[in-house]
Each structure stands twice: as structure tokens, then as C-alpha cells.
């Protein structure tokens, strides 16, 4: 059994100036590329497959498998690209930004190895625009890496060339969706593309492209150094490795906890000092607002991809938002729905219209003007969004609503009852006047 906390990605975070190249080099930094650049590309792809590394951006797709979709030849007319998804905008998610602030070189080293393995000579880091300090650190780290010969031409005499461009976004959650991100990186409105073709066939500039999350790629150097068996000493059979759990909300010690995949909420709460002021837990998300809510009955669900799915939710980004008894579920659901309404890109009707109406109904309900039929109307609208939207934002938007009603229907009903009572009261007043 691994320890309750397994600092791998977070192991340098306590070191002074952990973001500097000198610190990184003192703590085994840039040893994995020396190892990797000597090997055939296929061997690295196979290693990542064997390790079972699954994407940390939400969907959990096996990284090695994704890499193997890239053409295994180099054609100067069809350059390959690696694009790092650093758009971190899923509500509750707050792991990639601190990772890049604390240890940007681990991401850069991962980019070098992944680019080499996929025969890409240009890598883009698409980072959301609202995180200036993080962007500054990335620029500084990229400069340091160029100066030290880890980037540019003929890296460490290996014959491999790589350029990294740090690209700041401009405030749009949908740009985290990988094909919207590519459109945005091409200087367009960030709207999702039809798939297929998948990015490995036609991605950035219609060239073979892989999009991976920050945490996914930052994990790669450790796998190269430690091997797949070492990686599998943490986590579960189908969800191996360590994972940064971001615990926020009504707990004593919110923060970033890097633990083996499969850790439960009960264990995480213990690490985080328990519920704030002892006020009991009411609901929580395992991986951001797009993953269905869970309750105090789910404290022992293993938080890996399989466990979260079996419990009727999703692992998502392991953004554990914890809410205590004082928080109204209809209110929280209304707030999230407004978010999806605001962030819907407008490309498809179910999501554009659906999120608008859902927000209207929920606002009315929270203000105490809802009816029981509204609950059914909402579930109906959700049915029409789920699986019928162009991208997964639509699916995510219905998660809080459906799960909120599933577990806390009484709370929605209570708001309607209040409303009914008020209406009949005023009817009585009217009658007696």
C-alpha cells in the first residue's frame, strides 16, 4: 500500500524558488529527457501505454493510446503538433495553475518527451488568460530552458528540435474543449469542431495534433525515470498513478493533496482536517461542476475513473468541492446553470436554448416562484440536451441539475410548496378583502 499522500508532481513544491531551473536541476530535473531522447519513439509510447497513464483533463483517455494515433512518420509537409491544454476553467478545478506556477519545468520536460515521442517540433501551451503570474512563470521557464539547451535545435546533441510557444487565451471556458481550443489557437472564435476527423488526423492547421492536459504531460518524466511498474505501485489497476486532488469549500484545510487514484472522500476529508467547524457534509463533486453531485452516502467511493462512474458520477478533474448543510442545493444548481448559460458557445440549439431556459426556471424557483411542474420541465429539457449537444459542455450542464434533483428533490419541492402556500395565502387575503 502506498502512503496516503504520494508527492510525485508536488514533490518540489516546498523547495525555495521551486519554479527556477536551478532548483529543478538540483532535484533530478531534466534527467528524464536524457533517458528518453536516446530511445526509439515507439518505445516511449509503449512505456506510457504500459504505465496506464490516463488523461488528467477530465475524460481519462489513455495517453499512450492517444499518442499512438499520431502518424509514425515525419513528413515535412505535414508537421505534427503537441498542444497543452492549460485552460483550466472547469468550476472547482485548481490544480494545473498551481502546478505550472510551482514547477513549470516539469511540464516543459514532459512536453519535450511527448513531442519527441510524437515527432512534433512545435508545442503550444494554451493557458487561460486570467492567470498572469502563471503565464509569467511559464515564459520565464521556457526562456531558461532555451538558454540551457533543453529547447531549440539539436536538444542535448540528440538531433531533436523543439520550440515551445506560450499562448494566453482570453476568457472562455469552452476553449478548454480540445477542438474549440484548436480553433481559438488558430485565432478564431472558440467553437468545437465536428469529430471525426480527430486531432491526430487533422488538428491544429489541419495537421496531426495531440491535445493533452497539463497534469498528464507533467507526469510523463516521472514515468520515464521510474518505469511503468513503479507508476502502478500507486492507484488502481485501471486507474494507476498519483493524482492531484483539489479540495475546496467547507473543510478545515482546503488545498492540493496528491494521493494515489482511488482515494476516497473520507480519506481526503481526514487529510483536510475534516468538515469546517464540524458542520456536516451535504453534497460534493468528485471532479468539477460537470460531474454529477454526490452526497454523504458516497464517502467511501474510490475516487478513480471506475469508482466515480459506478457511483453515478465521473472522476472529471478530481476537483472536490465540498458543501455543508448550510448551502441550498437549488441555489448552487442555479449558480452553476448560469455559468453554463454564460459559457455556452451558441453553436448548437439544445445547449444554447436549453441552458438559457434552465437558468430562467431555476432563478424563478430559487426566488420562490417555482411550481412542481417546473421540476419536470427541467428534467425534460435536460433530456433534450444530454447526448444531443454538439460537445460535452451541454452534457456537463445537465449534471448538477439531474443529480441535484435526484438526491435533493425535496429541497426543490419545498421551494415550490412555499410558493403554493404563499399563493393560497394571498388568494385568501384577496377573498376576504
Amino acid at each position, binding site marked *: 500500500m502506498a502512503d496516503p499522500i504520494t508527492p510525485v508532481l508536488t514533490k518540489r513544491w516546498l523547495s525555495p524558488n521551486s519554479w527556477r531551473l536551478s532548483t529543478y536541476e538540483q532535484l533530478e530535473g531534466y534527467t528524464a529527457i536524457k533517458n528518453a531522447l536516446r530511445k526509439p519513439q515507439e518505445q516511449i509510447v509503449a512505456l506510457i501505454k504500459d504505465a496506464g497513464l490516463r488523461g488528467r483533463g477530465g475524460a481519462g483517455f489513455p495517453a499512450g493510446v492517444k499518442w499512438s494515433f499520431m502518424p509514425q512518420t515525419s513528413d515535412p509537409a505535414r508537421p505534427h503538433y503537441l498542444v497543452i491544454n492549460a485552460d483550466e476553467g472547469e468550476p472547482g478545478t485548481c490544480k494545473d495553475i498551481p502546478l505550472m506556477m510551482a514547477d513549470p519545468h516539469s511540464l516543459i520536460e514532459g512536453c519535450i518527451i511527448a513531442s519527441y515521442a510524437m515527432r512534433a517540433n512545435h508545442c503550444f501551451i494554451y493557458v487561460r488568460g486570467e492567470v*498572469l*503570474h502563471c503565464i509569467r512563470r511559464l515564459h520565464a521557464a521556457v526562456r531558461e530552458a532555451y538558454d540551457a539547451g533543453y529547447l531549440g535545435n539539436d536538444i542535448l546533441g540528440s538531433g531533436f528540435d523543439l520550440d515551445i510557444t506560450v499562448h494566453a487565451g482570453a476568457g472562455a471556458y469552452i476553449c478548454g474543449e480540445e477542438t474549440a481550443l484548436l480553433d481559438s489557437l488558430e485565432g478564431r472564435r472558440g467553437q468545437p469542431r465536428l469529430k471525426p476527423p480527430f486531432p491526430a488526423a487533422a488538428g491544429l492547421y489541419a495537421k496531426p495534433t495531440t491535445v493533452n492536459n497539463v497534469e498528464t504531460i507533467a507526469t510523463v518524466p516521472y514515468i520515464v525515470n521510474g518505469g511503468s511498474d513503479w507508476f502502478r505501485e500507486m492507484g488502481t489497476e485501471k486507474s494507476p498513478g498519483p493524482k492531484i486532488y483539489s479540495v475546496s469549500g467547507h473543510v478545515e484545510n*482546503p488545498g492540493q493533496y496528491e494521493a494515489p487514484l482511488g482515494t476516497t472522500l473520507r480519506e481526503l476529508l481526514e487529510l483536510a482536517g475534516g468538515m469546517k467547524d464540524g458542520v456536516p457534509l451535504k453534497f460534493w463533486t468528485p471532479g468539477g461542476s460537470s460531474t454529477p453531485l454526490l452526497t454523504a452516502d458516497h464517502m467511501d467511493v474510490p475516487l478513480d475513473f471506475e469508482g466515480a462512474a459506478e457511483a453515478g458520477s465521473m472522476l472529471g478533474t478530481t476537483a472536490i468541492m465540498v458543501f455543508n448543510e448550510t448551502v441550498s442545493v437549488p441555489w448552487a444548481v442555479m449558480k452553476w446553470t448560469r455559468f453554463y448559460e454564460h459559457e455556452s458557445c451558441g453553436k448548437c440549439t439544445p445547449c444554447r436554448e436549453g441552458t438559457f431556459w434552465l437558468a430562467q426556471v431555476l432563478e424563478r424557483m430559487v426566488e420562490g416562484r417555482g411550481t412542481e411542474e417546473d421540476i419536470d420541465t427541467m428534467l425534460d429539457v435536460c433530456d433534450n440536451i444530454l447526448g444531443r449537444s454538439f460537445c460535452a459542455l451541454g452534457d456537463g450542464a445537465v449534471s448538477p441539475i439531474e443529480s441535484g434533483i435526484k438526491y435533493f428533490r425535496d429541497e426543490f419541492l419545498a421551494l415550490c410548496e412555499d410558493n403554493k402556500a404563499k399563493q393560497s395565502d394571498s388568494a385568501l387575503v384577496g377573498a376576504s378583502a
Partner: protein
Amino acid sequence: MTESTEVFDADIHAKAAEIIGRYPVARSALLPMLHLVQSVQGYVSQEGISFCAEQLDLTDAEVSAVVTFYTMYKRKPCGEHLVSVCTNTLCAAMGGDAIYKKLAGHLGENGTPLGHEQTSGTPGEQGSITLEHAECLAACDLAPVLQVNYEYYDNQTEQSAVELVDALRKGERPQPTRGAPLTDLKSAEQQLAGFFPDEEQFTADVDGPSAAEETLRGATLAQDRGWVAPAMRDEEANHG
């Protein structure tokens, strides 16, 4: 309409060209170039749109369609500082909604609260502040958070937020919890376009604080308890 060349000098033209040089296809430069334009005027004006269109061989309409898609591009002149309060659910439940409401009232005039993306004071002048509510800022463990010019002020209260904007109005620049010493919105936008101050200042900025207690909690707990990840075997490290 003013000619874009009157607003954007040779230096900005050179910077625009430099941005284009970062990409295999010129149009990719549009988002950073719009940040550059905002660094000059504090918003994306019609001249700013034409400027980008000229550099990238696009039509004004094509650039406009992009500008309106992204919330960070402002269509009206902004204050010296942009204050963004996270009001997404987690922060809101932890006090973010109350902070936003408090600031809107505090910065408003004659009993009318300041609206979303409205400015207190004369845009561009010292002490002027544009207020907005923001979606999740990827700092939920430090909730409730707000940003000034996209630098983080963590674990805010109504009182700390009011003190912060009062200081800004007086021309002071309180240090962010995590970030470089505060400048103004235009300077921040220049950095978002990928242009940073000279070496000495840049080094100081980069080394500005980031290590919040919350960020380090897991790592600190592991250190205190002696918890570690499984050891890597040496032969793996050497031969893999």
C-alpha cells in the same frame, strides 16, 4: 474614425510583427495581438480592431467576431485597474457573492451600485476601477478570491476587499497574495501579449510569491508525516 496608425506607434507595430513570428500561421497571432491592443488603449477600440485586421490581412468584421467571443476583451475604456470577483458557486458560497455586492455598492454613486464591467472614476485615470464578476478563477482552495489586473488576492472578506479597492483608489498598489508587484491593467495586457519588462524587473516579477499555504498543504502534510511516493529503482532511472 481615427486612423489606427495614429494610435499605434512603431513600437506596437514591431511587437505585432514579433507576435506573428511566433506562429506557423499568422492568424494565430490574433488573440495575443488583441491583448497588445488593449495594452495601448485599455480596451479594444474600433481602431484596435482595424489595426489587427491590417496586420493579419483579415476584415474588420472577422476580427470583431473574435473580439466579442472572449470576455477578456473589453469594448469600453476600462479603469486603471480591473477588479474581478469570482462569483462561481464555490466562491459564492464562501462569501464571493457578498463581496461582489459589497464592492458594487461601495464603488457605486448616489446609491446606485456599480454594474458589471462598469467603471468608477474616469477610465484610464489614476485610481479608476472597473468592476466585474468572474467565473471560476482556478483558485477554489483559496476561496473567496478576487483578482486585480489578473493577479490573485486570496481568501478575501468584504472588509479586505473594500480596503483593497480604497487603496487602489488612492493610487496605492497593495501586493497580491500570489503574483508580481501590482502594476495596472494596460501593463498586465502587455504581458499577456508576451512582452515583459527588462531583465531585472522580470526576474523580480517572476519570483513574486506563489506558495500559498493551501497550495502546499498536501506536500507539507506528507513532509510532516514522513509520507513519500514509492521509491524509484535505480536501474530504472539509469536504463529504463
